[in-house]
């Protein structure tokens, strides 16, 4: 992690803001013909007399934050020549600790998406920002919607931004009768309802896995999804590394990354999960002798009962050092049971703290979908202002947005794309990407982070804050608003470090109001000839990333499905329905129907299915149009993430699903691949330092270890690698041809009971590399520091090397994948990495550009390298499963890690002497 550049900070203090500089760069891009749009510089633009930092071509790193579902994750963005090109986690930020998820990293591609909306329009006419907002000035709104703004309705994404809070409060003062609504798409407020019931006040559980010896997750994927998952994974990884295997009990519907690490896993339909949670609560309460917990009798299958037995025993053995977590989408009764369990086990205050939600109006009516539905349905809305991301698409069936938008006298939408919502609103304003925005956001635990732009708005976008200010007649820019509304986030120190100190939400002391609790009863079991369908967040979140090709092509951690969603079914249910992979099913609830292809997933709960959100976009303005099935017709606002009693009818049609892995079985090769014999002491390296008069790169001997006990398969590393190394996407057809270009693939092997193991597979940098001796033109050779190198411009493309690679980690440029890149797309490319042409082979380089940069720096300084060199995959890995470094450098952790008794080399018997060591799982799941 290179140090944040302090010169960059001084710019903020000086009047010449960096944004000016970036705006200038943007303008020069416009002159270069990149954009044909009319640009309105909102601030004066001056060139630097003396450019800050070292000069052109030097990379700079800036701290910023990305909010998703209202919660911020601190990021560090690398910028080269004024272009942000790589997103990493901010090590100082509590929600990241240096890790970055797939969504965060891929959001970079969204910045350069040529499909982004580029201009403000009113009824199809292109206008500029101020002209488009003319009919939304305060006087105009008062005239239209009453003096107190009774007819004004604002729909926002949930947000915790202090700037937005200030501006919204000011707008509410000006228009006291206007209603504000927060539209939730991925998580629900059920946890706040549950804690309100238990404690009397709505609080969020803040789980600390660094002290948890036993983790019980019910319908939750704490290590790979949710606003705090990176921190969970960081803490879990640190704990697992230092103490040993954490007891992880997971009950879930669809296999999740967390579930793949579970020592005790139960696959259960959503309604059964409620019963399981209550049964566990009942068991623990009885064992503790707490009579205040009243649970109605619960019937469980023997498997579920066994899971509850094991989980309860472990929990009771680890009072104060255990934690029970429920997912963001879990229903209220599960959250309540989990809250009570943590109280019974004295975990509160140890592994879980309760903090107020940082979201604006958390727990308030304004977050409830039924209130929003009523408001939209009452017909009294004359001015509808939407800044939520595409609610016309994301809203469930009984929360119709389209008709109210069309009914409103004036409707306005601030959006990233000309999408479904833009199609039904009169005025459209392009939304600035967060990498183009000034602002402030709060993390799940309340810590405030500044959001600072890396580039001037490419397509005249504006932020929600700027819109809210403009609505109340304030034409200031995002930076001015930040300085005015949240000055603490605009200080040089905050901008440099990406966090504002002492803004963490205080823990609340909690006591359970036992007497106020009702008798807890499990939900009725659904009708037998139907299935329950769960709607988890998909690889493209709620659909806001559906145009993001990196995410579309990122194989799902569990199903390895790309470019689609599918109804995931357990094998028993699939057999009962008589379907196999790709058979299209018609799913029917009441009179609403959708069609979706079936995909059988080992370890999925029976009598239920999972269909991820975010697909089936029908509107304009997205490359993802018509990909997958939309879930909206099946979902109801009252329970947006599960629908019971869904009828499945086999249509007889077929849909081709692009799944990157054909087999889940390890074919009896576990001993060679995932549980190899412990590596004997490393054989003497075949490469010994630098020969005299050579390039000087030989002092290091690069190697990597990957801990299979920590890899959840979350695939953040795959996106990190794609972004760092200019890896193209190949589209659904390419995936169907098995031509994905990912340098890192995550192999997944599943046992009979649904337990799975994920094995990241990348170039093993074999010391005795089979690829090298078969290349007829010496295009793949070995460096003195132990890298298997690929010389692109020497490669003629015989592909012999791939045939002889036992790990099959080499990727071939079958066609010219970069041909279709627009000039805007090209801005994304990492200038340190060659963009490969058609007909050449490529593969993982151990991020050789980073290694060489570090080595060159140390050579220039005339001193040995200080500090570690990290690869992109290692940097992003949330659990820290990947360790990289030089075997010869005592400061690098890799040598010690490779000497771990669990270390083995994949396919060691072939004698390839890989430089990648895997650490086998402590306990085999199969």
């Amino acid at each position, binding site marked *: 992690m290179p140090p944040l550049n302090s010169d960059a900070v001084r710019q903020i203090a000086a009047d010449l803001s960096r944004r000016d500089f970036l705006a200038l760069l943007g303008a020069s891009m416009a002159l270069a013909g990149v954009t044909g749009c009319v640009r309105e510089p909102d601030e004066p633009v001056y060139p630097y007399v003396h450019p800050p930092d070292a000069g052109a071509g030097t990379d700079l790193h800036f701290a910023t934050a990305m909010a998703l579902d209202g919660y911020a994750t601190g990021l560090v963005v690398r910028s080269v020549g004024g272009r942000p090109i790589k997103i990493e986690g901010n090590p100082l930020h509590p929600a990241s600790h240096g890790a970055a998820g797939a969504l965060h990293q891929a959001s970079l591609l969204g910045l350069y998406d040529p499909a982004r909306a580029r201009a403000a329009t009113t009824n199809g006419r292109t206008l500029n920002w101020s002209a488009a907002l003319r009919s939304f000035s305060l006087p105009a709104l008062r005239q239209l919607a009453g003096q107190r703004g009774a007819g004004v309705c604002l729909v926002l994404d949930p947000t915790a931004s202090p700037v937005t809070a200030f501006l919204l409060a000011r707008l509410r003062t000006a228009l006291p009768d206007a209603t504000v609504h927060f539209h939730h798409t991925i998580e629900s407020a059920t946890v706040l309802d549950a804690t309100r019931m238990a404690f009397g006040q709505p609080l969020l559980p803040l789980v600390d896995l660094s002290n948890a010896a036993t983790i019980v997750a019910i319908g939750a994927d704490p290590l790979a999804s949710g606003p705090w998952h990176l921190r969970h994974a960081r803490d879990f990884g640190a704990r697992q590394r230092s103490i040993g295997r954490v007891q992880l009990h997971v009950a879930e519907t669809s296999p999740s990354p967390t579930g793949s690490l579970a020592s005790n896993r139960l696959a259960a339909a959503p309604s059964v999960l409620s019963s399981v949670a209550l049964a566990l609560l009942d068991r623990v309460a009885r064992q503790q002798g707490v009579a205040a917990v009243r649970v109605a009798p619960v019937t469980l299958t023997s498997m579920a009962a066994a899971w509850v037995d094991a989980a309860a025993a472990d929990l009771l053995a680890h009072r104060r050092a255990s934690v029970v977590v429920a997912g963001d989408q879990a229903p209220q009764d599960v959250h309540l049971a989990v809250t009570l369990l943590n109280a019974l086990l004295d975990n509160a205050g140890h592994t879980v703290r309760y903090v107020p939600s940082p979201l604006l109006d958390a727990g308030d009516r304004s977050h409830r979908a039924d209130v929003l539905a009523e408001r939209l349905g009452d017909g009294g809305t004359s001015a509808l202002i939407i800044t939520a991301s595409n609610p016309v698409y994301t809203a469930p069936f009984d929360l119709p947005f389209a008709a109210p938008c069309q009914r409103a006298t004036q409707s306005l939408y601030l959006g990233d794309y000309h999408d479904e919502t833009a199609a039904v609103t009169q005025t459209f304003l392009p939304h600035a990407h967060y990498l183009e925005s000034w602002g402030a956001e709060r993390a799940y635990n309340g810590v405030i982070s500044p959001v600072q732009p890396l580039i001037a708005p490419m397509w005249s976008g504006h932020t929600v804050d700027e819109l809210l200010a403009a609505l109340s007649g304030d034409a200031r820019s995002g930076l001015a608003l930040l300085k005015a509304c949240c000055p603490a986030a605009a200080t040089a120190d905050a901008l440099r470090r990406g966090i504002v100190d002492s803004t963490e939400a205080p823990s609340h002391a909690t006591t359970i109001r036992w007497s106020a609790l009702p008798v807890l009863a499990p939900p009725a079991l659904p009708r037998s000839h139907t299935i329950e369908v769960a709607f988890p967040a998909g690889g493209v979140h709620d659909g806001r990333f559906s145009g993001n090709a990196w995410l579309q092509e990122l194989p799902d951690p569990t199903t390895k499905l790309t470019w689609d969603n599918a109804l995931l079914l357990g094998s028993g249910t699939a057999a009962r329905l008589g379907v196999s992979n790709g058979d299209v099913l018609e799913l029917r609830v009441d009179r609403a129907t959708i069609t979706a292809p079936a995909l059988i997933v080992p370890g999925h709960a029976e009598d239920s299915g999972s269909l991820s959100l975010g697909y089936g976009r029908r509107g304009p303005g997205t490359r993802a149009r018509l990909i997958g099935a939309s879930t909206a017709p099946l979902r109801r606002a009252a329970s947006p993430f599960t629908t019971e009693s869904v009828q499945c009818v086999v249509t007889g049609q077929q849909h081709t699903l692009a799944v990157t*892995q*054909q*087999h889940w*079985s*390890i*074919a*009896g*090769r576990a001993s*060679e*691949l995932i549980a190899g014999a412990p590596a004997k002491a490393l054989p003497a390296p075949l490469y010994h330092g630098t020969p005299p008069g050579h390039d000087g790169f030989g002092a290091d001997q690069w190697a990597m270890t990957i801990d299979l006990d920590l890899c959840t398969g979350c695939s953040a590393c795959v996106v990190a690698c794609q972004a760092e190394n200019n890896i193209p996407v190949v589209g659904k057809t390419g995936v169907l*041809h*098995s*031509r994905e270009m990912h340098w890192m*693939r995550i*192999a*997944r*092997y599943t046992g009979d009971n649904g337990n799975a193991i994920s*094995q990241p*597979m990348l170039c093993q940098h074999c010391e005795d590399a*089979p690829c090298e*001796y*078969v*290349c*007829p*033109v*010496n295009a793949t050779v070995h460096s003195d520091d132990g890298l298997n190198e690929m010389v692109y411009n*020497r*490669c*003629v*493309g*015989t*592909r*012999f090397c*791939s*045939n*002889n690679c*036992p*790990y*099959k980690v*080499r*990727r*071939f*440029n*079958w*066609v*010219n994948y970069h041909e279709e890149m627009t000039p805007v797309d090209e801005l994304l490319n990492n200038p340190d990495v060659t963009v490969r*042409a*058609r*007909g*050449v*082979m490529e593969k993982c380089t151990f991020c050789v550009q980073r290694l060489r940069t570090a080595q060159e720096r140390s050579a220039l300084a005339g001193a040995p390298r200080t500090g570690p060199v990290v690869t992109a995959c290692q940097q992003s890995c949330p659990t820290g499963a990947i360790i990289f470094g030089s075997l010869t450098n005592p400061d690098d952790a890799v040598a010690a890690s490779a000497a771990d008794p669990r270390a083995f080399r*994949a*396919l060691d018997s*072939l004698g390839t002497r890989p430089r990648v060591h895997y650490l086998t799982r402590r306990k085999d799941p199969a």
Partner: protein
Amino acid sequence: MTALADVLSQRASERAQARAQLAEPPLILPGARGADLALRIITPLWTARRAWRFLFIVPLLLTGLFVVAMGVTLVQGIGAWGNNIPVAWAFGITNFVWWIGIGHAGTFISAFLLLLNQEWRNSINRLAEAMTLFALVNAGVFPILHLGRPWLAYWLIPYPATTGVWPNFLSSLPWDVAAITTYFTVSLLFWYTGLVPDLATARDAAPTRLRRQIYGIFALGWRGSGDAWRQHRIMYALLAGLATPLVISVHSIVSLDFSITQLPGWHSTIFPPFFVAGAIYSGFAMVLMLLIPVRRFFGWEDIITERHLDLCARLLLTTGLMVAYSYLCETFLAWYGGDPFERYALITNRAVGPYRWVVAAMMGCNLLVPQLLWWRRLRRSPLTLFIAATLIWAGMWCERFTIIVASLSRDFVPANWQTFHPSWVDISLLTGSIGLFALLFLAFLRWVPAVSISEMQAQQARSSGDARHG
């Protein structure tokens, strides 16, 4: 006593009868003797029937398809094919190995059998050599076409480049280039050297001035002097001596493209002899596929007799048994060796893997079909032989496909397993190459003496001389 004498004489006459039955008919039937032999071979060059033109239609169309498919491959890249990771080699290399194998029979017949003094080769060596040459043309196309950047193919040739970078001689591919170019050069020279006297015959017999001039140019001023004949014979024998080791070496080197790797199904020391046997096997199959219609079309049943077919069929059976032995060896050793990857690749994957139907076709065509050739009657039945040869010819393509694609599609890491599906370009290149072969072969039949007149006449001279002196 008389009874015994009767019995003995009866036995003797039975033996004589049996001997008479077993006795081979002469290689060339009496009708093909004499001066009109040359005429019969030469005349079709300028008395073509109208049917000729129609014969060219399909090969021309297929060649057009070949050109289009090559164009698409060159413009778009290998992406136009069905190849993927892990199956980075598929139809392209399958076709290459198959065609180059087919080429082997020609050289075997013309050079090997010449050195072994097998006179029966004289009727068919010209056809077989032409087949070799045209098969090599096809075989040469694929390795270049299959490169990601075919315009840089010359980097495989060792030449003192300004970059100072030489090919990697540890890889088998630069050796491949050397082997194939050598083989093509020697085959072309051998074929052409044998052809020169016949071209002179054609020049002398040609009805028009233009034809005389054209054949005259290619006849290189051959006058048929004793001196020229002596030099010709030396040259021909030398080339035969050069070509003979190539029969063994070329496919041995091609087989190293596979056996130097560590891929289960490729990594095998048996490959060089196995590939050579398979090559001659497929080559003889194709020789038969060509001889049978040609002798019928030209009415050359007395020049290329059933005895020739029989001899070819025997070689087909012999090489078929060698191939069968190799299959057996390969499978047994995979089991006996105990390596789980080998066992999976050579036993499980072939028996129940995604390409089991190709494997079944390969086994049926290459192992079962040749067993028909144990029967002399079937060996001498042109129709049966033609069908059997065609099946073996196709079966050998399946064998190349099985070795290459089935092994690659499922190797060490199960998560990487994928299947290969050919694209239209793949199929067009295969059928197109067959079309190009047919086109070249038809052109050869149409404009070049298809049977070696000089060698036939020399053979007749020798045999009649033997008869006189015998």
